[in-house]
């Protein structure tokens, strides 16, 4: 597989074209807004948390394929997670993307999120892949401030 196909895998292209959970939740109790000042990417996250579990999560905004697909797949992965699990997933994802814990032979244990493992070889694109995650993290922390990747 070429480097490029490694970055733009079929599943990423698919989520970019048909993002899941795209829009704004009618009922939500956690929201946050994220910006990437470098490229003007912007994402709004709304989450509905019930009994400490992420029931629904949706996103809207504009961004590149990496950032759109990352947000889309993230919403799928977060559904049904407890708040602690969601935070843990953010940490793991972040480590993988930034190449902090690159496991060379084994799977990262991140399941579908593994498709983003190629991103760590493109340092200029790390912020694209993590914007939605940072924003969710802020929404869960509930400080309501806009998040910036800078």
């Amino acid at each position, binding site marked *: 597989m070429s*480097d*490029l196909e490694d970055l733009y895998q079929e599943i990423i292209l698919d989520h970019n074209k048909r993002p899941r959970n795209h829009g704004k939740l009618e009922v939500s109790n956690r929201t946050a807004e994220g910006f990437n000042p*470098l*490229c*003007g990417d912007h994402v709004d996250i709304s989450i509905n948390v019930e009994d400490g579990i992420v029931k629904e999560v949706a996103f809207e905004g504009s*961004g*590149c394929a*990496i950032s759109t697909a990352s947000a889309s797949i993230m919403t799928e992965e977060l559904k049904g997670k407890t708040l602690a699990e969601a935070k843990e997933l953010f940490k793991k994802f972040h480590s993988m993307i930034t190449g902090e814990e690159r496991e060379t032979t084994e799977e990262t244990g991140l399941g579908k999120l593994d498709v983003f493992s190629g991103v760590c070889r493109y340092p200029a*694109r790390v912020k694209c892949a993590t914007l939605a995650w940072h924003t969710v993290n802020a929404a869960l922390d509930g400080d309501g401030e806009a998040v910036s990747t800078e």
Partner: protein
Amino acid sequence: MDASPLDIDRIRRDFPILQKTVNDKPLVYLDNAATAQKPQAVIDAISNYYSGCNANVHRGVHRLSVDATDAYEGARSKIREFIGAGRVEEIIYVRGATEAINLVAQTYGQANVGTGDEVIISTLEHHSNIVPWQILCKQLGATLRVVPINDAGEFLFDEYEAMLGPRTKLVAINHVSNALGTINPVKRIVEKAHEHGAAVLVDGAQAVPHVMVDVRALDCDFYTFSSHKLFGPTGVGALYGKFDILEAMPLYQSGGDMIKSVTFEKTTYNDLPYRFEAGTPNIAGAVGLGAAIDYVTELGMDNIARYEHDLGRYAAEALSSVPEVRLIGTAREKAAVVSFVVDGVHPHDIGTILDQEGIAIRTGHHCAQPVMERFGVVATARASMAFYNTRDEIDKLVDAVTKVIKVFR
């Protein structure tokens, strides 16, 4: 093309970085509006300065200091001649165009703009020619007015004329737009402003590397540019100001070199241009800039402008022949900059895929978010050319863009 007196193959050999490969492909550098590459002559001038005559300027009687001062002041003379200024005292060294605009805003602006007055800029401005004026207007209770552009990305002169009035104290406009490449009718803009008694600052960062500039013919009050876009080093640039205006301006930064004498009771300030150059300057940078000016002067600014004009048109035509590509900014008077978007593909994805082909372009908002907003896009991909780029490189760009479209179908 064949008629160009420029020997591009030979010129390309003057730039060591152009021999480089990126991702195993020959580098195609089309991000010249962000910063230009440096010829060996510039690199050597900086290196020779440090290995041969490094010393502080304006203060030593020893030989090295004299040599360093000569080199530093010699570069100032080259700048004067290059932009057609009348006197060397009118050339102030700055860190770059951004610092120059801040300098004018906080000296001339502070002294000449008052509450209720107006400063005029245009939609085409780089953030560096927006924010300093926003800050000034906020400080003074003045109003910032913005001349709109048409769908081609051209300055709307009638709207500008209608905006001018007794409240207008200053007009700040770029000579060439960094985001779109539009060349603004600066001479006419200055003429009209002067009819209303307003001063004009021209941000020439994108013009000086590509067209012949004559500040006296333009009759602008201030003109500024950065060395690094003119094939020189980063961290240095020049501000031109008319002598009488500079003479009357309040001080900017203070410290060494900008004074004649200091006691605890009283300080006498230095003459122009040193009065605006506090602290030990970027001497090696100035020397490098001087070498860059020698280099482009040798090639001939007219030759450069003609060659690039042809190349820019070639690029615009080639890219617009791809159905999915939409050009942003199609002004009649245009530098060799092509800003474009591809249906359904974010510019960052274009940039990453082009990089795999060894092609460097800029993607994003180009520090000109109001321009993006005007065209209803969040970002564009921008190929900006210099005299060392070739039609072959443009063909590679178009092939790579076609590849992008294939990846995203």
